[in-house]
């Protein structure tokens, strides 16, 4: 035994401090496991800082909403389903800021045929809380505005963030952002703002 370890071992052997030490270590480990989730922290960090003002109904269009609003924070408001609808595919017009589609109707129907209709705001965002709608997965979704409509060919398996799957640009693993070609000329008001 090395001379430097001898006093430490003697101290541990003749006191009850090992028990206290063990309790502290176990407690700290549990606390770490309960309150620290590096995977989630990385997902939140990957979204980047807030831009264009403070958090609110119009913020962060096109991002996977439930990363922060899924119950693990940092957002306090929790959503069961949320996303962004665009008027055209964002990557179709390089250099042009993506345009969220306001006033679109989003219809969701779950596997128990329970449905809900939601509207998009000025950023094209829509969202619903678990208190308002807690779907039984899988979920079917469609979007419409005026005479234009689009329906998902597949279903949403279990993730309420549209942007979890709908990522720009389209690829083998993503159909691209959710968009609805909206022909304003077909509206009775002739597309007036």
């Amino acid at each position, binding site marked *: 035994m090395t001379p430097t370890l001898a006093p430490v071992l003697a101290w541990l052997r003749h006191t009850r401090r090992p028990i206290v030490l063990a309790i502290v270590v176990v407690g700290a480990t549990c606390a770490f496991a309960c309150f620290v989730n590096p995977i989630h922290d990385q997902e939140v960090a990957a979204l980047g800082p807030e831009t264009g003002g403070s958090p609110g109904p119009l913020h962060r269009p096109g991002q996977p909403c439930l990363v922060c609003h899924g119950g693990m924070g940092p957002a306090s408001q929790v959503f069961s389903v949320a996303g962004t609808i665009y008027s055209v595919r964002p990557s179709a017009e390089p250099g042009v800021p993506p345009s969220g589609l306001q006033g679109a109707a989003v219809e969701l129907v779950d596997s128990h045929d329970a449905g809900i209709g939601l509207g998009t705001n000025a950023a094209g965002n829509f969202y619903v809380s678990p208190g308002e709608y807690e779907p039984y997965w899988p979920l079917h979704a469609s979007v419409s505005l005026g005479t234009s409509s689009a329906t998902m060919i597949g279903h949403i*398996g279990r993730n309420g963030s549209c942007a979890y799957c709908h990522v720009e640009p389209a690829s083998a693993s993503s159909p691209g952002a959710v968009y609805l070609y909206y022909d304003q000329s077909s509206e009775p008001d002739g597309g007036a703002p």
Partner: protein
Amino acid sequence: MTAKHALSVAGAAAFAVAIVGAAASCADVPADARIGLTEPSATQFAPVGNLLDHRCGSLDCHGNARRNLVIYGCEGLRLEPADDAGPLLTPGCRSSGGTDTTGPATQPGTELYATYRSLVGLEPTVMSEVVTGGGAHPELLTFIRKARGWDAHKGGQIWDAGDTSDDCATSWLTGTTDTTACSTALTTTP
């Protein structure tokens, strides 16, 4: 001989025995040895693969290359062409202007083939046991138990034992896929 010396000699002897033993155990195994696999039919797989794409292959479930079981198809993850040999497909079936499938399960490089290999390769020895037994005990396979809700499954219970989806999958393991059950399940389930 001192005790310390004796321990050194014993340790060296044990090490030598371990080396010789390890060498002997490897000597009889050919370098190209493989685990034998009795595969379920690839020619009978298409209806099952299409059902799995429909029920399990959404992009947020098994239509994800990071899953152990990866399912390819037009309702979810598309198979990227090897060496730019073909066009890059995006999720979407023919009804929405996409391509339903890239070819049969017997043809390497197709989505059905990729799904087939992923499924069969999940538990190769168990799969062999089930197929060798004529599909009498499909519940030995984890994917069957998870789909039935018998094992923990993040996606929950997908089907019941004995329903059309279950019949579709389990009949394939017997060697004769119940295509009627598969098509019924494909058109009547969410």
